C-alpha cells in the first residue's frame, strides 16, 4: 500500500507537471497568434452551439427551482441564473432575483437543518439575502437599494431569530450592507467603504471592524474615511457599548472583541479572521487612535448612571467591559484621559456584581498574552509540554497516564511531528496509539499543503495513513501542482498509466466506505483528480458516484471543502486542522468533466434523484461551459464518450 501510494504520488506529480509542457508543445511550430486565431475561428460555431445549450439549461433549471422543496438551493440557483444570464435577458434575470428575494423571506432555520451560531445570529436567511444582493449590486444597484430598503422595515425578526447573538449586527439592513461590503472589499475597497458607511445609519455593527481591517490592508485611505465616519457617529449618536468595542477591537486588538452576554452576564471573547497585521491600526495611526479615545472619554463621562437605566447590572457590566477593552489604548495613546475614566467608573462599581473587577482584568491579561513576544510564547509552550510529559511519566494511574500522553502528543506543533510521534509511542493502547500517530501525520501533511510544501505532503500521505486521508492529500497535491504549473487540466499521457491504475484502485476501495457521507466528498475530489488525467475513467467514476449520492442519507451539493477525516476527535483537534477549501465539491468534479464530455456529463447527472441536487449539478455543468475558454470548447466531444449504464 505504501509503495503503491508513493508510486501514485510521483506519477501524479509528474503527470500534472508535464501538462503545461504538452500544451506548450502543441502551440509550438506555427506562430502563436496564427494558431490562436485558427482555434478561435474553429471554436466559434461550437462555442455558440454549446453556449446556447448551457443557457437553456440554466434557464430551465431556474424556472424549475420554484417547485423544489429545498428553498435554499432554489434561491441560490435563481440568483446564479440571474447573474449568468443578465446580459442576455435583464428583465427575466430581475424576475428571478425578485422571486429569489421573496423565497428567501420564507426561509427558516429549519430549512438549513440546524441551529444558528450562538455568538453571531447569522441565519440562513441572512446568508441568502446576501447572495441575492450581491447579484443585484453587480448588475442593477438600484434593485439592490430597493431590496435593502425593504430590510429597513424588517424591525422585528422572527421568533427563531430573536435569539440575538452577543455579536450580532445592529439591524438586518446593516448586516446585509456589511455583508455586501465584505464581499466586495478585496476587489473594490472604495465601493466597500461607501456601502459600509451606509450601515452607520443604524449604528456601528460588529462586522464593521472586519470591513475596516480588510480596507486597512487593501486601501488605507478608504479605511480612514470609513473610520472617520464611524467616529462621527460615535461622537453624535453613541447608543451601545458594543459600538465602542467594535472600534476598539479594530484599533487595538484586530480580530478580537469582547462583549457582555445579555442573559447571564457572561463575558465572551471572539476570535475573528483578522488579518495578521505587523502593527495594529492604532500603532499605524496613533493620532486617529487618540481621536477615538477622546470621543470615548467624552461619551463615558456623559453616560447616564446605571440606576437610571432599566437594567443597572447589565448596563454597568457592559460599560465595565467596554472600559476594559479601552484601558490599554488609553494607557498608550491617551494616558492623560485615563484617570478621569477610572474615576467615572467608580460610579459604576456599586451596580457591578462584586467580582467583576477580576473579569475586567482578564481581557488585559489575555491581550498581554496575545501581544507577547512569539519566541517567548514558543519557549513557554515547549516548557509547558515538557512539564506535562514529565507529569504523565510520573502518573501511576494507567488510564490517566495514557490519556495524558494523548493530550500532550496532540498539543505538539504540527511542525514538530517527530516530537508528537515520540510522545504518542508511550500511549499504552495499540489502537489509540495508531489513531493518534495517524492524526499527527495527517495534521502535519495538511499544514505542509497549506504552506505549499506539496512534496512533503505527498510523502506523508504515502506513510501509514488511512485511505480517505491519503486520497484527500494526494488529490489536493495534484490540484496544487496543476495550479503551480498554471494549468489545471491535461490530457492523458502514456506516462501516467500507473497513476490511473492506482487512482482507480483507490476509487474502488473508497466505495466500501459509503457508510459515511463524508466519503462522498473524497470521491468527488477523486473524480476531479481523475478528470485531469483521463476523462473517460473519471466519467465512469462519476457514474458510480451518482448512485452513491442517490443512496446517501444527506449530501450537501454546495460544500467544496475536503471533509475533516479523522477518526480521532479530541481537545479541539478538529478545529485546529487546516482546511482544504476547494476541490471536493460537485462543482470541482463536474467542471472538468463537462468540459471534457458535455453530453455524457449531462446524461449521467440527469440520474440524480433529488431535484435540487440534480438542478444544481446541471447549473454547474452549464456554467462550466459558459465560462470555458474557446480552446476548451474546441476539445469538447460532440458525442458522448461514455455510454450510459442502466
Amino acid at each position, binding site marked *: 500500500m505504501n509503495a503503491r501510494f508513493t508510486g501514485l504520488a510521483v506519477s501524479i506529480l509528474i503527470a500534472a507537471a508535464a501538462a503545461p509542457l504538452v500544451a506548450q508543445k502543441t502551440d509550438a511550430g506555427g506562430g502563436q497568434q496564427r494558431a490562436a486565431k485558427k482555434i478561435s475561428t474553429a471554436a466559434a460555431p461550437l462555442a455558440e452551439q454549446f453556449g446556447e445549450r448551457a443557457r437553456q439549461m440554466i434557464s430551465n433549471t431556474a424556472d424549475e427551482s420554484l417547485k423544489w422543496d429545498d428553498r435554499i438551493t432554489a434561491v441560490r440557483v435563481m440568483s446564479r441564473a440571474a447573474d449568468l444570464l443578465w446580459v442576455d435577458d435583464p428583465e427575466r434575470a430581475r424576475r428571478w432575483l425578485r422571486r429569489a428575494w421573496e423565497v428567501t423571506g420564507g426561509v427558516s432555520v429549519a430549512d438549513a437543518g440546524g441551529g444558528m451560531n450562538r455568538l453571531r445570529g447569522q441565519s440562513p436567511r441572512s446568508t441568502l439575502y446576501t447572495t441575492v444582493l450581491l447579484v443585484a449590486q453587480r448588475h442593477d444597484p438600484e434593485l439592490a437599494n430597493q431590496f435593502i430598503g425593504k430590510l429597513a422595515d424588517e424591525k422585528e425578526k422572527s421568533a427563531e431569530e430573536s435569539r440575538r447573538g452577543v455579536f450580532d449586527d445592529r439591524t438586518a439592513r446593516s448586516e446585509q450592507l456589511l455583508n455586501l461590503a465584505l464581499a466586495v472589499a478585496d476587489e473594490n475597497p472604495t465601493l466597500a467603504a461607501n456601502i459600509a458607511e451606509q450601515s452607520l445609519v443604524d449604528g456601528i455593527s460588529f462586522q464593521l471592524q472586519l470591513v475596516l481591517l480588510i480596507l486597512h490592508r487593501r486601501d488605507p485611505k478608504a479605511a480612514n474615511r470609513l473610520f472617520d465616519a464611524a467616529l462621527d457617529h460615535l461622537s453624535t449618536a453613541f447608543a451601545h457599548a458594543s459600538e465602542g468595542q467594535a472600534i476598539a477591537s479594530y484599533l487595538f486588538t484586530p480580530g478580537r472583541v469582547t462583549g457582555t452576554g445579555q442573559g447571564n452576564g457572561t463575558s465572551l471573547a471572539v476570535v475573528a479572521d483578522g488579518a495578521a497585521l505587523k502593527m495594529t491600526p492604532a500603532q499605524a495611526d496613533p493620532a486617529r487612535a487618540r481621536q477615538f479615545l477622546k470621543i470615548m472619554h467624552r461619551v463615558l463621562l456623559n453616560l447616564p448612571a446605571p440606576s437610571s437605566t432599566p437594567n443597572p447590572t447589565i448596563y454597568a457590566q457592559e460599560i465595565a467591559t467596554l472600559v476594559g477593552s479601552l484601558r490599554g489604548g488609553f494607557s498608550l495613546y491617551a494616558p492623560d484621559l485615563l484617570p478621569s475614566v477610572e474615576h467615572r467608573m467608580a460610579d459604576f462599581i456599586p451596580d457591578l456584581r462584586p467580582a467583576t473587577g477580576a473579569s475586567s482584568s482578564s481581557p488585559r491579561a489575555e491581550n498581554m498574552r496575545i501581544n507577547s513576544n512569539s519566541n517567548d510564547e514558543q519557549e513557554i509552550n515547549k516548557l509547558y509540554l515538557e512539564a506535562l510529559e514529565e507529569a504523565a511519566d510520573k502518573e501511576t494511574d494507567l488510564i490517566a497516564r495514557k490519556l495524558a500522553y494523548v493530550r500532550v502528543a496532540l498539543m505538539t506543533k504540527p511542525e514538530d511531528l517527530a516530537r508528537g510521534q515520540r510522545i504518542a509511542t508511550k500511549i499504552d493502547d495499540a489502537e489509540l496509539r495508531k489513531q493518534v500517530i495517524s492524526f499527527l501525520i495527517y495534521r502535519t501533511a495538511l499544514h505542509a499543503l497549506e504552506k505549499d510544501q506539496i512534496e512533503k505532503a505527498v510523502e506523508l500521505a504515502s506513510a501509514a495513513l488511512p485511505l480517505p486521508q491519503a486520497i484527500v492529500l494526494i488529490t489536493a497535491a495534484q490540484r496544487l501542482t496543476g495550479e503551480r504549473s498554471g494549468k489545471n487540466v491535461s490530457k492523458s499521457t502514456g506516462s501516467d498509466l500507473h497513476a490511473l491504475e492506482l487512482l482507480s484502485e483507490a476509487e474502488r476501495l473508497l466505495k466500501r466506505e459509503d457508510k459515511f457521507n463524508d466519503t462522498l466528498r473524497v470521491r468527488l475530489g477523486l473524480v476531479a483528480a481523475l478528470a485531469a488525467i483521463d476523462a473517460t475513467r473519471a466519467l465512469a467514476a462519476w457514474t458510480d458516484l451518482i448512485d452513491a449520492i442517490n443512496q446517501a442519507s444527506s449530501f450537501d451539493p454546495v460544500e467544496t471543502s475536503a471533509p475533516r477525516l479523522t*477518526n480521532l476527535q479530541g481537545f479541539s483537534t478538529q478545529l485546529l486542522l487546516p482546511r482544504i477549501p476547494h476541490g471536493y465539491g460537485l462543482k470541482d468534479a463536474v467542471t472538468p468533466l463537462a468540459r471534457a464530455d458535455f453530453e455524457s456529463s449531462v446524461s449521467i447527472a440527469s440520474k440524480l434523484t433529488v431535484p435540487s441536487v440534480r438542478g444544481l449539478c446541471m447549473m454547474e455543468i452549464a456554467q462550466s461551459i459558459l465560462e470555458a475558454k474557446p480552446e476548451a470548447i474546441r476539445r469538447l466531444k460532440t458525442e458522448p464518450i461514455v455510454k450510459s449504464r442502466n
Partner: protein
Amino acid sequence: MRACTIRGIVALLLTMWFATHIGEAQSAAGSYSPPKEVTLIFELQDLPGRDDPRSLWELTYQWRIADGRAFSEWVSTGMDSTKESQVGILISKQSFTRRDLSKAENRQFKITVPVAGELFERLSESTQRNQAIWVDATVHIYDAKLNRQIIERVNPAWRWPGFKDGSARVVMQITPLGSWSWTSARPSANKNQPTETKTVTLPPRP
C-alpha cells in the same frame, strides 16, 4: 499558537463566568450545614455505537475544592495542569473503564465522598468564604459504530449555591452524526447560570 489562543479563550470564559457569579454566593449567604456526603455522577447519555460490544467509555478525573479567588486566579492564568494540585484540596481522584455500554448501569459512574476534615470546614464556611468546586476530567470514548475515538477534557465548575445539596452530575453524549457535547447539571439555585463550558468558534465571513 491557535491551540494556545483557544485555551486562553476558554480560560477567559471560565474566569469571567465564575467571577461574575461568585458574588451571588455572598448575597445568598446564610447559615449552612454541609451534607454528610458529596456525590458526583458521570453519565454517558447516549452514543451511536451503544450496542456494539467494542465500544468503550473511560474517564480519569480529579475533583477539587478551593477558595473562589484562588480558583479564579488559576483559571485566569490558563488553567495550568501542572499547577492544579497546588489549588485547594483534592476531594477525589479516580479513573474507570466501562464496556458493554448497552446496559444503562455501565453508562453511569457515581462517586460518593464523606464530608469530613478540611472539606467539611470549607463547605461549612462557604457562606463567608466563597468556594469553587470543580472537576477536571479527561474522557475517552471509542464509538465502534462510528469507528471514532473521542478524547475530550470535561471541566465543569460549581459555586456554592449550585452545589448546596452536595451533588453534581456531568452528562455527556455523542449524537447520531458524531458530534460530542457535555453538560453539567443545572443548579437549582440559579436558573440563569450557564450549564456548559463552551468554546468560542470563529464567525464565518460571508
